[in-house]
């Protein structure tokens, strides 16, 4: 099995690790780099729980070939908090009970972050569209939508 070195930044810090031929980014982050925040739900692109940002764009880590992040910027939910201070989206998700089992939460947070970076004042429909690739089996989505709107409309203490 060929091992290939990959150097990239993960949540702002430079990382170098070996990937194997055909390894997807999700497996690489979790097993190769030790970032357990992106979750494995389906491995086929349908659940969104593995969503990470690659050079700022939301992508499904289970469908990204790990070696293609060479030189790129990867962001995961593990990088959202600044030390002990949670990211406003994390605060809002807690306040609104937008996480139940929590399995979808890291992917939801990253999809929401991508939206707010591109469009800081989204409409409700734009929020729904932005999380349309992320499945949640617990919350019924409404608390998640409310939490994201809270952040965009400045209702979150942080």
């Amino acid at each position, binding site marked *: 099995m060929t091992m290939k070195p990959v150097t990239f930044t993960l949540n702002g810090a430079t990382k170098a690790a070996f990937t194997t031929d055909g390894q*997807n980014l999700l497996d690489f982050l979790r097993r190769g780099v030790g970032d357990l925040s992106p979750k494995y739900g389906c*491995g086929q692109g349908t659940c969104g729980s593995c969503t990470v940002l690659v050079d700022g764009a*939301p992508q499904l880590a289970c469908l990204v070939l790990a070696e293609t992040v060479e030189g790129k910027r990867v962001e995961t939910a593990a990088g959202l908090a600044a030390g002990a201070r949670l990211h406003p989206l994390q605060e809002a998700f807690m306040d609104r009970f937008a996480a139940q089992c929590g399995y979808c939460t890291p992917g939801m947070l990253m999809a929401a972050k991508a939206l707010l970076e591109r469009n800081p004042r989204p409409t409700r429909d734009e929020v729904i569209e932005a999380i349309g690739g992320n499945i949640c089996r617990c919350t019924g989505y409404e608390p998640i939508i409310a939490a994201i709107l809270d952040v965009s409309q400045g209702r979150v203490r942080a």
Partner: protein
Amino acid sequence: MAVTVETHATLIDAARALGSSGATYLGGGTVVMRGINAGEVQGRIVRSADPALRQVGLSGDTIRIGAGVTMAQIAAHRELAFLHPVARAVGGPQVREMATVGGNLFAPHPYGDFAVALLALGARAVPATGGGALPLEDLLRDRRRGGLVAAVEVPRPRDPRAFGWLKVSRVKPKGVSVLSIAACLPRETGRIRGARVAFGAMGPSPMRSAAVERVLEGQSLDAATIARAAQVAAEGLEPPTDSIASSWYRREVAGVHLRRLLEGMA
């Protein structure tokens, strides 16, 4: 995992490496990576980092879209406004960041929504090995022989209202297609000249409907013409049965959706 991945600097190198070896080309990977994860795709994987793949170029009335251009790139491109609704209908936001135009031409049923629009627009595929561009219907007829595609050349509709698009899915907005329809109906003094109508998920790959085009050609888009077109909508198409819909259902509803699309374009 029995795969090896080769990255080639230029598309022509990638095309040579692919040859007729049975290796798999990796575009955005939304279909291929699924196969690799499941162990269904094995052997050599060939990819290319050629920047030309990601370029969009305009010359006169023709738009050249690199095969590696993503749906998100299309949806953000000002000159491609007529294609925005089509690009936005492919998967969710993450899929659109990854899914490429080239991959959409080869994605199996029920995928290929973007290819349906390209087919109706009269687009041509530019082979990576050089040589003349190929009408999309020829490529789609036998995709196994398609070879590596460098770009698609899309004639820009003179009147944007001549192009219409509709996708029917059960889960909105990102569910896969029950069917999709694209129509290019340029009009001269009120009459349709050069009708092109294509269906997705109504055959093994996106297909033009000769029957509908015959009904529309030379006519004005009035209620009687639309009714006749709706009647023959499923003629000559072979919709597959899958978990989204049965072949019977797709045939039954094709005319209804075609009528809605044409009424919107009248």
